[in-house]
Structure formats: structure tokens, C-alpha cells
């Protein structure tokens, strides 16, 4: 092989790799938004939402139904779905989960696993096991930026996810309610002493966490086809991301999402698509052992 040809092959490999990384990065931002919901809920309410992926898939089906019946683009549908999920989260926390706050982990676990089983099989009953795609008119369009080929849907979804995350960040840092919620996370006793209504703030937090799930699920519907089988994989994905990024750190959830997105994309391309989560779990194990508080987490 001549030097020129070798440089050509290397160059092509290089540009393919960069494309794969960028695709993973865009998907990873949507993952990050989903994981952000888990992180917010755990950071404040101290309850691990074992039904996180199941609820994400419910949001995906909601986006699918809105697209099918009203022709609503999931990008737009993400706003009403996030709002509806906020309400759902508020109700779930006030009616179901509040009595379990502060109880042993395994009791919360059974409650939420029961909910997860209920949801995923309810979806199976209603929609069946087949994947439901949202086929957008611009589904196969892409932007050409230099050597990069960017899927339009992924770019839109990533930008929307980033916007939601920034909005959430602003809420937590610049509003009184957001500050009050952070106070509950930092010092529960202190928050109660200064007269914050902790139960109501918990309900708000769970609502906000599920709003993230609703938005992320709607955006995810443009990238992946809704199917009940995705649910438990998404729950594990959200856990992995949050632990890697650092529980309670909002930037950490996004960073973890991007890392997992890129690692999945690279593994899917260079190894086999069915092996992609193996690399995520290897990453998780490495982080747990080397830096248990996560990349951007604070030591508890």
C-alpha cells in the first residue's frame, strides 16, 4: 500500500470515528436529560426511582400517540408531555411515595419495582410488544458541517435537551422555590426548622424529575422506536449515567449522559451493537471503584 493510500484509509477511519463520536454525543445529551430527572429525585427526596426507564417509555408512547393522532412533532410535544409528567410526578410523590420517604431502601424498592412492573406490562397490554416508530418527514435529513454528517433529528433533540437542562438549572439557582428545594437536599432538618413545607417540596421535586423524564422521553421518540422492552434498559442506563456523573450534580448527569452516549456509539461501531452496554457497565464499575462519588460529585 502506498503512503497516500494509507493516509487516505486512516483519514477515512478518522472522519468516521469523529462522526460516530458526535452522534453519540448528541444522543448522550438526551440520555443526560433523562438521568437528570433521576439525579434530582435522588438528590432531594433520597428515593431511588426504579421506575425511571418505564416512565421514560410512557413518555415515548405519549409522543408517538400525539404524533399519530394530531400529527404533532415530538419536539413540540415534549412541552405538553413534560407538563403532564410534572403533574403525574407531583401526584405520585404526594399519594404514593411520601409515606415511604425515610423508610428502609428495600421497602421503597419494592414499591417502585411494583410500579415499574405495572407500567411496563400495562404498556405491553395496550400497545403489544412491537416497536412503534415516529416517522418524521425530516427523519433522514442531515446537515453537512465540514467532514461531519449530523442527523437533523439528533441535532434538534440534543439542542432541545440542552435547553430543558439549562431551564432547570436556572430554576434551581434563581428562583425561591428552587433554592428551597436545594435547601432540603443540603440540610433536611434545617429546611424543616426554617419552616419549609418539605412534603410539598418533595412532591414538586418528583414532579420536576418526571418533567425531565417526559421531555427526554418525547425527544427520545425521535431517535429510538418506543417499545416496552426498552424500559428496564433505560432504568439501568439512567442509573449508570447518574453514578458516573455524580449523584446530585446536574452538570454531572449531562456529562455522564454524553460519556455513555459516546461509549455506546463507539462500542456499537467498533465492537457489536449488542455489546454496547457492556462498555457502559465497565465504565460504571471503573468509576464506582476509582471515584465512587462520580466524576463531578461531592464526597458525601
Amino acid at each position, binding site marked *: 500500500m502506498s503512503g497516500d493510500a494509507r493516509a487516505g484509509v486512516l483519514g477515512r477511519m478518522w472522519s468516521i470515528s469523529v462522526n460516530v463520536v458526535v452522534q453519540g454525543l448528541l444522543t448522550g445529551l438526551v440520555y443526560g436529560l433523562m438521568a437528570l430527572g433521576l439525579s434530582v429525585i*435522588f438528590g432531594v427526596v433520597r428515593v*431511588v426511582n426504579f421506575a425511571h426507564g418505564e416512565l421514560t417509555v410512557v413518555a415515548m408512547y405519549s409522543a408517538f400517540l400525539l404524533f399519530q393522532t394530531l400529527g404533532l412533532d415530538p419536539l413540540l410535544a415534549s412541552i405538553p408531555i413534560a407538563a403532564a409528567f410534572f403533574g403525574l410526578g407531583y401526584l405520585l410523590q404526594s399519594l*404514593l411515595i411520601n*409515606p415511604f420517604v425515610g*423508610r428502609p*431502601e*428495600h*421497602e421503597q*424498592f*419494592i*414499591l417502585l*419495582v*411494583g*410500579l*415499574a*412492573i*405495572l*407500567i*411496563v*406490562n*400495562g*404498556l*405491553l*397490554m395496550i400497545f*403489544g*410488544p412491537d416497536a412503534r416508530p415516529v416517522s418524521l418527514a425530516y427523519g433522514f435529513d442531515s446537515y453537512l458541517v465540514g467532514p461531519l454528517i449530523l442527523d437533523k433529528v439528533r441535532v434538534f433533540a440534543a439542542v432541545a435537551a440542552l435547553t430543558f437542562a439549562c431551564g432547570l438549572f436556572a430554576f434551581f439557582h434563581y428562583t425561591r422555590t428552587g433554592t428551597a428545594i436545594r435547601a432540603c437536599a443540603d440540610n433536611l432538618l434545617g429546611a424543616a426548622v426554617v419552616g419549609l413545607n418539605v412534603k410539598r417540596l418533595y412532591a414538586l421535586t418528583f414532579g420536576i424529575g418526571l418533567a425531565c423524564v417526559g421531555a427526554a422521553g418525547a425527544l427520545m421518540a425521535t431517535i429510538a422506536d418506543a417499545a*416496552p422492552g426498552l424500559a*428496564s434498559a433505560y432504568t*439501568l442506563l439512567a*442509573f*449508570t449515567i447518574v*453514578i458516573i456523573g455524580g449523584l446530585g450534580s446536574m452538570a454531572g448527569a449531562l456529562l455522564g449522559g454524553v460519556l455513555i452516549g459516546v461509549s455506546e456509539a463507539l462500542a456499537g461501531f467498533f465492537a*457489536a451493537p*449488542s*455489546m454496547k*452496554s*457492556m462498555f457502559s*457497565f*465497565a465504565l*460504571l*464499575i471503573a468509576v*464506582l*471503584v476509582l471515584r*465512587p462519588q462520580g466524576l463531578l460529585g461531592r464526597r458525601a
Partner: protein
Amino acid sequence: MSALWADTPPRGRVLAALLLAAFLAAPLFADRYLISVLILVLYFAYVGQAWNLLMGFAGQLSLGHALYLGIGAYVAAALWIHFGVGPWLGVFAAIPIAALGGAFIGWLGWRFSIEGVYFALLTIAFAEFTRIGFDHWDFTGASAGFFLPIGGEAAAQWWNLGGGPLLFYYVALALATGAAALTAGLRRSALGYRWLAVREDAEAARALGINVFRARMAAMLISSSMTAVAGVFYAFYYRNLFPAQVFDIGRSIELILAPIIGGLGTVFGPIIGALILTPLGEALIAATERLGLDAPGTKAVFYGLALMVIIWLRPNGVWPWLAGVLGIRSKDR
């Protein structure tokens, strides 16, 4: 067994003896279907007991016990298929390998003080990692499955764990009874008291001079070894293995339901939990079929609902409440 006996008040002894006698005599009355349900009850009582040792006594939440189950199943099946080594010998290879896996996870986790939810996630991560690994390992059939021969001479030899449902029923009964006796014995041992101290307050236990790491590791070794034995049973009972089923997170979750619903950290909890949950699942199948609700998932919807209702009503599990109702004030919490 004697420790279990000494701790139980007379009425409890009578009830325990009646339960055991009922199980021993069940094949005289039960049809094939009922036997298969009872095998599942005993299987869940057994693995639940194994998991209960780690969580209920040593206080460490594992959500990855499918790992030890799968290792046990695959080691015994691979030895049988590739080398002709029978399960009664194979189990002695399966136990140390699964225990080694458990020890590695425990060492990684507890050395770096990864506890609670984080430790649970570590166990999930290892189980999932292994599942995908086995999905791609051709030596054990990869994702296409690994099959033990059905029919033929060897499949009917009881000494190779082949035969009818009765064989598996009595093996499962022996395992479940043995596990309950072992748990009761351990609970009264010095190690058992160390576990309880570590579970309630690891710092205080350490201050008392208890080696917390070693106590937890002992629980992990026993628990993973016992689960590996269940894996061998699983492999030879079902005679087909798929990584997506054996190592699945769902497998890890289903085996911890019975002890939690029955009562964590009690000897009878896993048994009572299995006696409630397995027949509940079967009854739901029958009921949904009779009502003509044959959409997939119908049964599981009600199952999920039932879990939520039970944990809502009896957060400590059914056994502590049931023991009160039956007037068995046992020291077994």
C-alpha cells in the same frame, strides 16, 4: 435444626412440623401441575433464604444475585455437556467459582466503602456485564442458548439429576429445608450476632472490635455459594439456558421479592413470601385466562399491583405480623 427448635415456642414447632409434613406428603395428593408450582415455591424459598443472609442479616443490598445463579447454572451445564461431569460433582466446581465472583464484588465494594444504593448498583453492573459477556461466548452457546439433552439415558438417571418432577421436588424440598436450618443455625452463632451488629450500626460494630469487612465477606461467600447451588438446580430442571433469562436483572429482582414480602432478616420470611407470591402469580394466570384477558402482560400488571399493596400494608413483611396472629412469639424477630 436444633437451634431453630430451641428458639421456637411449642405452637410454632407444631406448625413448622405440620408444614414440613404437608410438603413431604404433597406428592401423594398433588397432580403434575401442582407439583411444578410447589417446586417453584421451594426454589424461591431457597434462593430467597440465600439472599436474605446477605441483606436481611448482614444488611447489604444485592440486586445482582442472578450473577451467582447464572454462574452456577452455566458451570454445571458446561461441565456436563463438554466434559461429561455430572451435577453432583459439578456443583462443587460451581460453588467456588460463584463464591469467587461474590468475593471479588464484595472486596471491590467494601474496600472502597461503596454501600447502600451504590453497592446495589455495583452488583447490577457485574451481573449485566456478565450477561452480555455470555451472550457473546460461543463455548456456552452465546445468545442462541445452551441446551442439556432431553430424553436419552442420562436424562433419566437420578444420579445425574435427571428424571421426573418428583426427583426435583424432593431435591428442592431438601434444599429449602436445609437452607432454613442453616439460616437458623447461623442466626444463633457468633457470626450471626456479628452480622446483626454490623447491619444495625457498622461504626459501632467496628468500635466493638468486630471486623466489619470480614463479617460482610462471610455473608457474601455463603450467600453466593448457596445461590450457585440453586443455579445448578435451575440448569438441570429447565435444561435450557439463555443469558438473557438467567443473568437478567428480572431474575435478580424476582428472587428477592419473597424474603422482602415475607419478612427480611427472619428465618420463615422467605418461606412465607414464596408461599404467597408463587401461588399468587399462578392464580393470576388462571384468573386472567378465565376472564378472557389474554393480552400479554395482564398477569404481571396485577402482580405489580399486588406487590405495591402488600408493601403498603405490611412494610415489615408478612411473617412478623403472621407470627403475632398465630401467637408464635418467637425470638426470630
